[in-house]
């Protein structure tokens, strides 16, 4: 069976955030490939393995939904979806904060802001719907006390994710991609978490228990909260855009 070497001449997918159109190359890639084809390793079509994994995914989903609970099935499916999406788009939160500093690029930063904007709108709607009908508001577990622990923890996390080459979601994604480094990283990630759990009494006593939980609708009302949030996100988007322009101009 002849395997066609699939030449991927990727056009940069046109982003809202990308500035240049991909110019047609004056060089023929076939000239290069004929020269270097001797060094090329044989490429395997992995589709069959992918389909095998897909079968397992479906089987596990059905099993969980039947043997444990339907909600467990949902957790599994949403996990698969998140992992799939992260991988297909190479969405990296680490890069969204690291690249502005190291390379001047803010395309991921702006994509994260877009995600925040859309998800905020959706969450606000769901939360408001529950509020207005007197039900328990979902997602309130994410409204946690603001204290020195928040700042310190975020700071440590920011350092760690850049060093380790991936944040929490990025680490999971890269394990699925086959990176040995992230397998090592997650072991120590768990260890660090466990260690902090041990110290949690101290953190709670000294900082967290004094920290207020601030839900924006309590401050601005529901409409005001989403307005303020989107305004901030919008301003940050413009700032990120300007940042990249400035940095790219400095370089060329």
């Amino acid at each position, binding site marked *: 069976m002849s395997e066609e070497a699939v030449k991927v001449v*990727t056009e940069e997918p046109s982003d809202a955030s990308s500035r240049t159109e991909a110019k047609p190359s004056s060089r023929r890639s076939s000239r290069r490939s004929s020269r270097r084809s001797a060094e090329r390793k044989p490429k395997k079509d992995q589709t069959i393995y992918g389909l095998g994994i897909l079968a397992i*995914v479906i089987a596990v989903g059905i099993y969980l939904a039947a043997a444990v609970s339907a909600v467990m099935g949902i957790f599994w499916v949403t996990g698969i979806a998140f992992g799939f999406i992260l991988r297909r788009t190479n969405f990296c939160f680490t890069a969204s904060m690291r690249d502005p500093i190291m390379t001047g690029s803010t395309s991921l930063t702006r994509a994260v802001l877009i995600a925040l904007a859309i*998800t*905020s709108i959706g969450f606000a709607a769901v939360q408001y719907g529950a509020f207005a009908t007197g039900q328990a508001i979902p997602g309130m577990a994410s409204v946690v006390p603001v204290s020195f622990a928040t700042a310190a923890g975020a700071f440590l996390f920011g350092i760690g994710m850049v060093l380790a080459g991936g944040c929490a979601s990025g680490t999971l994604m890269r394990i699925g991609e086959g990176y*040995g480094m992230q397998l090592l990283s997650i072991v120590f990630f768990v260890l660090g978490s466990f260690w902090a759990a041990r110290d949690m009494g101290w953190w709670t006593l000294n900082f967290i228990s004094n920290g207020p939980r601030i839900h924006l609708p309590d401050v601005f009302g529901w409409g005001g909260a989403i307005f303020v949030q989107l305004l901030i996100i919008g301003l940050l988007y413009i700032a990120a855009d300007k940042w990249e322009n400035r940095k790219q101009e400095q370089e060329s």
Partner: protein
Amino acid sequence: MKLSSISSNKHFQAWFKSPWTYVTGAILLSIFQIVTIGSTGGSWGVTGPFATWGAWVYQAFGGSVDHWYFFSTESGQASLQRTFFTDPASVRNLGVIIGALLATLLASQFKFKKIKNLRQVGAAIIGGLLMGYGARIAFGCNIGALYSGISALSVSGWVFALFMFAGAFVGSKLLVKYFMA
């Protein structure tokens, strides 16, 4: 139907092979975040179960976390009683890994990438520890504390984002100075 005819089909190429844009990712992730909050009552998080994983292993080796404040709460106790496949957050994390694997295989891009040098080992260990410790005391990571926190209209999310950026700044400087050739 030959397998190679599936993988060269134009829809297959568009859905499973050609990369998608970051903006597409932003939209799709948002959709599934909203699905999550709508169907499970909570938002997406990654690092939540990590401390419990540590406890499970620790207990398996005869250790005890019974005196720990963290595990004395109702939720802490409940998490210890669960096993991996009865713990929703753990199942979702495994799903993320498998989902990424699935995408990689369907695109025929899977390659096991061994750790290249000691610098990577050091970076993974130190980076992992910092992320783990930080995420625990801040109640979450880039997903749970930042993405979900901000989206849930919590000020904690914004505070997290600000200091995570500061940390990324320091981390970038350290990376260049100590962990790059």
